[in-house]
């Protein structure tokens, strides 16, 4: 009979609390080939589809102090147009006079159409409260761009400025480990443990990275938006917390998305 502690330890690995645990494996396993086979096998049935279904309902359901749906939300292609919208974000929006990514834009729509206070969402944690609603909307919106070509318009001067600010943010080293985004994502063929790190400074890597997020993380059983992904990158860089929807996060998204132009949107992704 196994002890309770042993049982707990056995499950701990399976459910991902011990993220740093790692098992020494027999060398003869062809790791790369095995991992590729694994990744291929989990592509079917991405649980992000479940959130996308909920997001679809949320989009068309009246909500908030104003009891309006988001059916008139303009994601850049005109009010209510969702198909293909994500493949063209971030972009400059004249009504807010700002460059916005999907999540900051959704907050604008929720504020103007439904009367939901964006400050409340900014203060929440990921996958909680209103921010979970945003995540479900994100799952829906990005699914509607699956298979589209990434085509971010850089004509507006504000977009060019945000690209430059994003580039600077990408290479910005700071904190106790002296890391920047480029420390992990600035060269080809690098990986942390077994995780491949796309080179986001080049088109191919940027398309692979930008094009496969937001994604469902099987290790956490969670759907992560791009804001969530960036937030956790900064956590692992040992830097301070980026504020939800802040300009630094939007600028980084502009940098990645523009570098990815011409690539394919494979959203929502599914990751280990």
């Amino acid at each position: 009979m196994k002890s309770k502690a042993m049982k707990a330890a056995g499950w701990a690995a399976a459910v991902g609390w011990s993220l740093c645990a790692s098992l020494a494996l027999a060398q003869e396993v062809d790791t790369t080939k095995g991992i590729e086979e694994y990744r291929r096998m989990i592509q079917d049935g991405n649980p992000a589809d479940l959130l996308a279904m909920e997001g679809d309902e949320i989009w068309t359901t009246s909500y908030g102090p104003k009891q309006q749906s988001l059916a008139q939300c303009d994601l850049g292609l005109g009010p209510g147009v969702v198909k293909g919208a994500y493949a063209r974000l971030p972009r400059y929006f004249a009504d807010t006079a700002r460059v916005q990514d999907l999540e900051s834009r959704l907050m604008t729509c929720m504020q103007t159409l439904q009367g939901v206070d964006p400050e409340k969402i900014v203060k929440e944690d990921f996958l909680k409260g209103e921010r979970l609603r945003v995540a479900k909307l994100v799952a829906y919106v990005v699914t509607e761009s699956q298979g589209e070509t990434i085509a971010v318009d850089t004509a507006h001067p504000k977009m060019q400025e945000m690209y430059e600010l994003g580039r600077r943010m990408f290479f910005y080293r700071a904190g106790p480990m002296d890391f920047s985004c480029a420390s992990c994502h600035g060269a080809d063929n690098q990986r942390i443990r077994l995780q491949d790190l796309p080179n986001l400074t080049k088109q191919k890597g940027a398309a692979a990275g930008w094009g496969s997020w937001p994604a469902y993380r099987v290790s956490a059983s969670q759907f992560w938006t791009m804001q969530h992904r960036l937030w956790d990158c900064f956590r692992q860089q040992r830097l301070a917390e980026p504020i939800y929807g802040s300009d630094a996060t939007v600028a980084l998204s502009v940098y990645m998305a523009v570098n990815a132009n011409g690539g394919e949107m494979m959203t929502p992704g599914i990751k280990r």
Partner: protein
Amino acid sequence: MAAGPMRIRASVSGDEINVRVLMAHPMETGQRKDPSGNVIEAHYITDVVATINDKIVLTAEWGPAVSTNPYFEFNAKGKAGDTVKVKWVDNKGESREDSVQVK
């Protein structure tokens, strides 16, 4: 993720249908702890029933080792227009049923 919607996709090929089911369910083992060290209560689907035109074709018994947000796929004799119904029941007595018409 709380228990929520189910997504059923059913497609026909010859005289067989392929059914793919995705369920929103935490599938908590009851042996996991939250960050403050409290044990998270077991919560998992125990039984699944799939019918085609109200006739049972497949039943399943699950333990907590089925992955969170379960996915499963099966094949059965059938044709376009058939109604595929899937229902689950969990250890807390919650249940959910969804159906789809084979296209």
